[in-house]
C-alpha cells in the first residue's frame, strides 16, 4: 500500500506515481506554505482521541505483540500525540527565536524542505511518528516503510489527512523494498534531509545513497544500562525489575544490565541475588514473556552452563535470569528479562564506557542522593544522554531524542537583512 496526495493506492501502481513525485514536491514547495504546526497538532489530537478510544486496536495489537511491547507502554506513547503534549514539544524544541539579531536583521525558522524517512520495524521508531515530527517542522515527507509493515502507518497517516486535508501534499508513503536501491537513491536525491531509523548498517546505507551535501539525521540503535551503588534499596531495584519486564529489554532505552560501583565480588553477587528475586516477582506479577523467547533463553543459559564459563554465576528460574559476570564490558543481554550484573567502579566509568560514545543512551542511576551528582557527572562525561531512575523507558513530552531535538534537526534558521 502506498499513500499519495491523501489517497491509498495499491503497491503495484507505485512506479507510475514515482515518476511525477519530484515535480509534485517542487510545486508544493513553490506555493506559500499551507501547513502550520497548529494544523498538524489539531489533526494529531483528533486522531489521538480515536486511537485512545480503541478504534485502531485491531491494527495496533499485532504490532505491539510482534515487538513485545505492553499496551500500557503503547498508551503512554500514544499520549505524545495529544494537543497538549505536541504543543509543549514544539515550544521546547523549536523555542522562541530572537526576532531581531541586530538592528534590521530578522531571524526565522524554516523547514528543511523535503525529508526522506527510512523507517525501522519496531515500535520505538513507529514510522508514522517520524512523519509527524517532519510535519511539525513544516516539511514534505517521503516515507519508506519497513519490511513487514502491516499497514498501520499508512492507515494512521491517511486518517491524519482526512482530519486535515491541507496535509495531503506533504505526506508520501512508499512500500519500496530496501533492495530497490535505484528508487531509494532517487528519493535520497530529492531530499534535503534523510531521517534514518535503524542499525548502523541502515545508517551507513543511507550515507552511501545521499549526496555529500544532504543532511543525514540518524536515529541509530542504542544500548542502555543501570548503574547502582552498594546503597541501592530494594524499592529502587523493584522499579528497575518492572521496567525490564514491561519493555522486555527490546527498546533502545531498555536496561540490558546492571553495573555496580564495587570491586568486591561478594557485593556484586549479593546485588545479583537481590535483583533476581525482584525480577522473579515482577515476572510473576506482570505475566510471563513470549514462550518462544523464554525457550530460546532457557536453551542459551543451559548451553552456557554446559560450557562452564569462568567467573560467571547464574541465577535462573521461570524463564528469567541474572548472570553475574567477571568482565566490565557493556553488552547486549539475552533480552526478554535476562539481565547481566558486572562490577564497574566509579573511577572506571569514563575509561570503560567512553569507547561506546554514540551507542550509549539511557542510564538508570540508582544511588543515594548525596552520591548522585558526582556519578551523574561521570556518566555524562562517558557519553550517556539520559539519566533516569529505574523506570528507564519513561516518555516525557518535549524530551530530547538521543541527545538532540528532532524538530530542530528538521529545520533551518534563516537570517534576513
Amino acid at each position, binding site marked *: 500500500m502506498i499513500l499519495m496526495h491523501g489517497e491509498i493506492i495499491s503497491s503495484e501502481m507505485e512506479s507510475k506515481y514515482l515518476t511525477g513525485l519530484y515535480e509534485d514536491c517542487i510545486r508544493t514547495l513553490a506555493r506559500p506554505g499551507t501547513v502550520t504546526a497548529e494544523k498538524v497538532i489539531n489533526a494529531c489530537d483528533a486522531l489521538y482521541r480515536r486511537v485512545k478510544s480503541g478504534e485502531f486496536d485491531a491494527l495496533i495489537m499485532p504490532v505491539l505483540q*510482534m*515487538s*513485545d511491547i505492553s499496551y500500557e507502554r503503547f498508551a503512554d506513547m500514544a499520549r505524545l500525540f495529544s494537543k497538549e503534549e505536541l504543543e509543549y514539544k514544539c515550544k521546547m524544541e523549536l523555542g522562541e527565536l530572537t526576532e531581531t539579531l541586530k538592528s534590521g536583521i530578522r531571524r526565522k525558522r524554516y523547514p528543511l524542505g523535503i525529508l526522506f524517512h527510512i523507517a*525501522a*520495524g*519496531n515500535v*520505538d*521508531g513507529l514510522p508514522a511518528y517520524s512523519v509527524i515530527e517532519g510535519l511539525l517542522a513544516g516539511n514534505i515527507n517521503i516515507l519508506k516503510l519497513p519490511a*513487514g509493515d502491516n499497514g498501520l502507518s499508512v492507515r494512521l497517516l491517511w486518517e491524519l489527512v482526512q482530519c486535515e486535508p491541507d496535509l495531503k501534499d506533504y505526506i508520501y508513503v512508499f512500500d519500496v523494498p530496501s533492495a530497490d536501491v535505484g528508487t531509494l537513491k532517487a528519493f535520497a536525491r530529492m531530499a534535503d534531509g534523510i531521517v534514518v531509523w*535503524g*542499525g*548502523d*548498517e541502515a545508517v551507513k546505507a543511507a550515507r552511501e545513497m545521499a549526496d555529500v551535501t544532504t543532511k543525514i539525521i540518524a536515529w*541509530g*540503535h*542504542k*544500548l*542502555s544500562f543501570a548503574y547502582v551503588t552498594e546503597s541501592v534499596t530494594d524499592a529502587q531495584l523493584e522499579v528497575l525489575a518492572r521496567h525490564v519486564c514491561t519493555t522486555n*529489554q*527490546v*527498546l*533502545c532505552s*531498555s536496561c*540490558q544490565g546492571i553495573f555496580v560501583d564495587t570491586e568486591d565480588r561478594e557485593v556484586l553477587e549479593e546485588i545479583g541475588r537481590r535483583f533476581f528475586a525482584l525480577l522473579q516477582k515482577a515476572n510473576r506479577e506482570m505475566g510471563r514473556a*513470549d*514462550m*518462544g*523467547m*523464554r*525457550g*530460546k*533463553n*532457557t*536453551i*542459551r543459559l*543451559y*548451553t552456557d552452563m*554446559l*560450557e*562452564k564459563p569462568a567467573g560467571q554465576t547464574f541465577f535462573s*528460574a*521461570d*524463564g528469567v535470569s541474572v548472570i553475574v559476570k567477571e568482565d566490565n564490558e*557493556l*553488552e*547486549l543481554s539475552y*533480552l526478554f528479562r535476562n539481565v547481566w550484573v558486572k562490577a564497574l567502579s566509579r573511577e572506571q566509568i569514563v575509561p570503560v564506557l567512553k569507547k*561506546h560514545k554514540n*551507542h550509549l543512551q539511557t542510564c538508570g542511576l540508582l544511588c543515594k542522593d548525596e552520591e548522585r551528582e558526582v556519578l551523574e557527572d561521570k556518566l555524562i562525561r562517558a557519553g550517556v544522554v539520559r539519566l533516569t531512575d529505574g523506570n528507564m523507558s519513561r516518555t516525557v513530552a518535549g524530551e530530547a531524542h538521543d541527545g538532540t531535538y528532532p524538530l530542530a534537526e528538521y529545520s533551518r534558521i534563516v537570517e534576513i537583512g
Partner: protein
Amino acid sequence: MLFVKAMQENCLYQYENCPEYARILDEKGFHPKDLQTSQDLERLPFIPTLYFKRHAIFSMPGERLLIKATSSGTSGKMSRMGFNAASLYRGFRMVCRVGKYHKLFSLRPSHYLIFGYEPHSSNKIVFSKTAYGFTYFAPALSRSYALKYTRDGYQVDLEGLKEKLIKYSKGKAPVRTIGFPAYTYFLLKQMKEEGIKVSLPKGSVLTLGGGWKQFYAEEVSKKAFYDLVKEILGIDQEHIFEFFGAVEHPILYTDCRCHHFHVPVYSRVIIRDVDNLQPVEAGKPGLVNLLTPMVDSVPILSIMTDDLGILHKESCGCGVTSPWLEILGRVGIKDIITCAAGAEAVLKE
C-alpha cells in the same frame, strides 16, 4: 526396551570416546549404566544444537567420517557434523524402510524439480545431500534446481522451474518435487497470479522438506497450501509428502496421510518445559528434545532442538499407533527487530 538398550550402548560408546561428552555426563552426575528403562531417557543429559554450533565435537577421528555436513544455518551459525560408514549404512537402511512404507519408491522414470540447492563441492549443507539422495527413489530423467550454482554463487531461478513444470505437464513421465515449502509456495503463488494452471502426469508427487519456518511472515496454513497445490498442479493431498529431520538428528520423519509426523521406531521425542526443562505431558507445548541411537560418530543421542512442539498421543486416522510430533516453530524468531540488538552487532566488531 530394544531402544533403551541401543541408547545405553551408544551412550557408553560416546562416554568412552568423546571426552567432552564424558565431562558433561560426569558434571550432571549421570553414567551410561544409569540408562535402564525408558523413564531414564528423560534423565539422560541432552545437548542443545546450539552447543554443536559453538563447538565441533566428534567421537571418532576425522578420517573415519565419510560425510561431513553442516545444518542449514538459518540463524547464521551452523552445526558441524560428521558421519562414519556404519552410521550412514544404518541411515540408508532406515530411508529404504521408511520410503517403502510410504510407497515412495517407483520404477517409473521421473523428472525431479528440487526447490533447494544444486549440489556443488562448496556446499556442505545437509539438505542438498538429502534432496539429491531423494532423486534415487525413482529413476531420474532430469533434475532441475531452484538454487542454481553459477559463477556468482547460488542464484534463485524459480522462472526456470516454472517453465519445466509447464513442459513436463504435457509429457507422460511423472514429476517429483522436493524442497523447502516456502520456495514451492512462492512459485505456486506466482503461477496463480499469472493465471497458469497445469495438470501434472499421473504418479506425480510433491514432497516438502526443510521446515515451514520461512512461512511465519506469510501465515499460510497447510490446508491452504494443499488446496493451492491441487489447483495449480493438479496433485491430490494424498500425493503430498512432508519430511522432517535435522543434521543433529538425522532421522527421517515422514508425514502420514493425515499429515502427522509419527515418531519413527528409530527415534524418541521428549517435550520439555520452556522454563525448567522438565518433561511435559502429551498435548502440551514445549521444547523438542530428540533421541536416537543411530549415530556413533557424534554424541547426538539426545539433542535439544531450537523448536517448539507438541507430542500428540491421541489416535490418528491413518492407523499408526505411535505418537506424532507437531512442530510449532522455531524459538525466539522475534529478536531481529529489536533496536538494542542492532547496537550490539556493532560493538562486537
